[in-house]
């Protein structure tokens, strides 16, 4: 297992994110323990592991919500290191490095309409177009054009996730599955290069879950971005991931293609071990 891991960890021109020796401590608890891996463009990288394995913490480090205790997070653009994420402010990771994410416990702007949620996602672009609000207040045509373009993008994504009929409704009034889809649409409206999805299939029924898989595959293929996908359930993630990383108690225990991971004795032990505890 460690052999494949080492092989996968060499960056090249398809690399998107390289994580090196990432460690995150909370007091005495080591939530992430010396994890290294590479995620690539146009690939879905699945991250699996039992409860409390450190998956969400990994996302929080990548998106700047936590400052890692140790480690390096390099984001590549055109095969070269463009950003060191561990040194950036949280919002700048979204704004400049264009890493977008969704949350395990959905975080929509519940009181705002579905369409507004997607407009807020395009804030930085619109802010520039509105001349930091001044041209916007004056109603200059350049801003109005930018806003129309932003609305078109939002409409495009609402059509993609099947929410176009509910554009003017409060996001908080959507049913659960629709909220999950809206959150993905919102992340996509930021034009990300890396999309981090934290258990997007949680709480979905089998049909919704299958539709979600289709959506993720098309995001990968049409928009050519990299996806980091946290998934609790191994069987779901096996189907669509190009590459899987398995965490257990903060440590990376396996790294490889779905077939390799499935047959890895360490993974089987971790998952069986968990079952024994339950």
């Amino acid at each position: 297992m460690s052999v494949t891991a080492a092989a996968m960890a060499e960056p090249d021109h398809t690399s998107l994110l390289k994580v090196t020796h990432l460690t995150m401590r909370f007091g005495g608890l080591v939530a992430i323990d010396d994890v290294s891996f590479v995620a690539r463009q146009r690939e879905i990288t699945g991250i699996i592991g039992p409860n409390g394995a450190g998956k969400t913490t990994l996302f929080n480090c990548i998106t700047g919500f936590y400052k890692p205790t140790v480690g390096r997070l390099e984001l590549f653009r055109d095969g070269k290191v463009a950003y060191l994420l561990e040194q950036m402010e949280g919002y700048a990771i979204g704004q400049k490095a264009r890493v977008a994410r969704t949350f395990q416990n959905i975080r929509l702007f519940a009181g705002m309409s579905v369409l507004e949620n997607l407009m807020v996602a395009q804030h930085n672009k619109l802010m520039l177009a509105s001349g930091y609000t001044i041209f916007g207040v004056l109603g200059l045509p350049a801003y109005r054009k930018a806003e129309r373009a932003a609305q078109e993008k939002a409409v495009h994504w609402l059509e993609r996730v099947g929410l176009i009929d509910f554009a003017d409704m409060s996001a908080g009034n959507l049913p659960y599955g629709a909220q999950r889809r809206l959150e993905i649409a919102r992340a996509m409206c930021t034009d990300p290069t890396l999309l981090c999805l934290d258990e997007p299939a949680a709480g979905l029924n089998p049909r919704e879950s299958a539709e979600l898989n289709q959506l993720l595959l098309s995001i990968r293929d049409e928009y050519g971005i990299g996806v980091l996908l946290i998934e609790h359930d191994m069987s779901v993630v096996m189907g669509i991931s190009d590459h899987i990383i398995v965490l257990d108690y903060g440590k990376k225990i396996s790294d490889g293609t779905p077939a390799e991971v499935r047959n890895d004795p360490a993974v089987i032990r971790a998952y069986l071990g968990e079952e024994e505890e339950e």
Partner: protein
Amino acid sequence: MAATTMTGAKPAESVARIAIKEALLTAFLVFMLAFLMIGFRTEAQQGQQLSYVTRFAAIAWGIILVPLGRILLVYNRHGRPMPALIGGGLAFVYLFGGALVAILFDVLVIPFNDYFGEAAGASGIPLPFADPIVDGVFGLGALYLVILALQTMRHTAHGILTLEQREAKEARSATRAKQLSLVLGPALLALAVVLPFTPWSDRVLVETMTLILTYVMLGWGLNIVVGLAGLLDLGYVAFYAVGAYSYAKLSTEFGLDFWGSLPLAGAFAAFFGVVLGFPVLRLRGDYLAIVTLGFGEMIRITLINWQAFTGGPNGITGIPRMTFFGVPFDRTPEEGTQSFHTLFGLEYSTMHRILFLYYVILGLALVTNFLTIRLRKMPIGRAWEALREDETACRALGINPTNTKLTAFALGAMLAGFAGSFFAVRQAFVSPESFVFLESAVILAIVVLGGMGSQVGVALAAVLLIGLPEVLRELSLYRMLAFGAVMVLIMLWRPRGLLAHREPTILLRRGSGKRPQKAGATT
């Protein structure tokens, strides 16, 4: 009460047991809290000495009455509201009945006071404990009991609402608020414009309306900070003070007139907003509230202590009065200059300036309103609201929370600065006394009562909260009590404010707009 099985519902005895247990605990708490706070009241005597009066009787009554109320409350909680309703009602009538009669008498009969001779004036309002605080606490407690009992009764009558029923109810009330705003907004505006020319308008009414409009403007300004950006600012009055003192200093020392110093006053206030905001806007919720509260007090104390610059507690007097864009409203203009009435060939009247002031604040308030409406539809306005909804999600979308909050804070401060300049020019006098915490609290109350984010609601709340105490001025001491009671009642009646509703800033107007079915996407 009758048949209780071993595993069944709670037997009636346990309600009584709970009631007695809670009553004893309450009695203990009342004793601990009231002994020092109510038991002794310090009074300043002539020779600078403090003496105190004891109010042990009030404590004794408290130890008897409050646990009794608690018992009624426990029964109410277990589905038996009748004792609370009757007990609370009787107590309220006993405590306030006399006062209510006297107040009604005052308000309705005062015009005939001469006829009645020495009739009950405001000072003669009968209260059983002869102490507005003690009576007020007991009275509000009794009122609270009655309201809770009524709520229980309504619940048992209608059953508990399902989630969908409640959503539908909220949607209905939002729609109603929206329709009402659509009618009320233009109506109030039209009324405000023509009011000075209506037959029942007089000097007092116009001056009261000027005061109300100042608070409408402050409410709308604070609404950007609290209603849109969701930042709880308890020190808003500080920026109002900065604006007022800016005009006072600029006019008395540099000879700038109102219109010249208005932009500067706004800029100073905004600058203070940024200076304060930068370090503290990282804090969330309660912490921000506490720091802003402290900042408000700091500014006031600086104004008191920086004698050389601010005139200390005496403030700044002789501030130049409002001019008609440079033309004074004097009765006798200086040689070779014009005055407002000579310019327009009018008979001199003190009302000219008062009317002009009224229209200036109306104009300023309307500018604030239109600015807010416009900004809400801008990216920055949407970011403010998004920040209020979920700061974490904003950060994940690449929105810089500190900058976004700072703009809201600075803009709100600037508008307060404008209002402060207006206050200074209207009064021709500023002193720290005008900028106490209570002012911040009143402005915040206007925003909250109006329904956060609702422009018409804020205006309505300002009319109510500023106008009402003016009307109730007769009641002197009891004014704040009545004010508090009205606020409590409004919050019970409309917990989200008078006209709470939110319109999306952008509409697609496509599709059914109905709640989608459980089955999801069609991709």
